[in-house]
């Protein structure tokens, strides 16, 4: 699935429920689904706040999700300001917006809740976060695909 929406606050929930509804076909446990929702919420919140800091000129965010076997891949892409120093951005507690009470824990949460997190970013060009999570279907609980 591909979901495109405006980079405005309020759309974080839209993005995470859409990815959760999509991931539901792998029959994840409630906890795994919560972790995926949280990671998506972090990436989308970052795109909204950091990617497009100039609220009046806010752009679009694209969220793509795909399932291959038992592996969920989620991409969150913005065409905003981009990240200059990715290694520093990844550090726990590092934030450029303490004024907004950001905690600097976004990337740390993504990394802990997903199996793999890739960051591609270039200043002035935007940011693409790719997150991968393997979902083991509970034995027997997975229904045979209809259609």
């Amino acid at each position, binding site marked *: 699935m591909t979901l495109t929406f405006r980079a405005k606050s309020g759309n974080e929930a839209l993005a995470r429920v859409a990815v959760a509804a999509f991931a539901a076909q792998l029959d994840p446990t409630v906890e795994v689904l919560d972790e995926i929702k*949280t990671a998506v919420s972090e990436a989308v919140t970052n795109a909204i706040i950091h990617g497009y800091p100039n609220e009046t000129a806010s752009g679009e965010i694209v969220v793509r999700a795909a399932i291959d076997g038992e592996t969920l891949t989620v991409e969150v892409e913005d065409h905003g300001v981009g990240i200059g120093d990715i290694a520093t951005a990844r550090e726990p507690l590092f934030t450029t917006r303490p004024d907004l009470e*950001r905690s600097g824990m976004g990337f740390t949460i993504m990394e802990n*809740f997903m199996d793999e997190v890739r960051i591609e970013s270039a200043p002035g060009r935007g940011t693409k976060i790719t997150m991968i999570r393997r979902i083991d279907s509970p034995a027997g609980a997975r229904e045979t695909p209809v259609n």
Partner: protein
Amino acid sequence: MFSFETEIRGRVLIARVAGELDHHTAPSLRETLERAIEEADVVHVVLNLSSLSFMDSSGIGVILGRYKQLSAKGGRMVVCGLGPTVQRIFELSGLLKILTVAPSEEAALGALGVA
């Protein structure tokens, strides 16, 4: 869907938070708590998260901000009702080390010396 209610018991403010706490919903909680803690008679805060259905790192920011505000006036923050995912977020961010976690609202009030 996000909502919260607050109640004052002695020198303790109880905030019961329900629904989804994220970047969009955090400001309303922050403002209410911020103002309440500025009052002289509120010294401690109990945060009951048992009806919270979702929280991301925006919640850490609000909680840490209020923790600092309380510490500055010698007060404490006690949280209860952490679900497993929220518990891990607290753990990762170090909140578990600085806050007291109680098994229930009554226990939280008890820890603060309120019956």
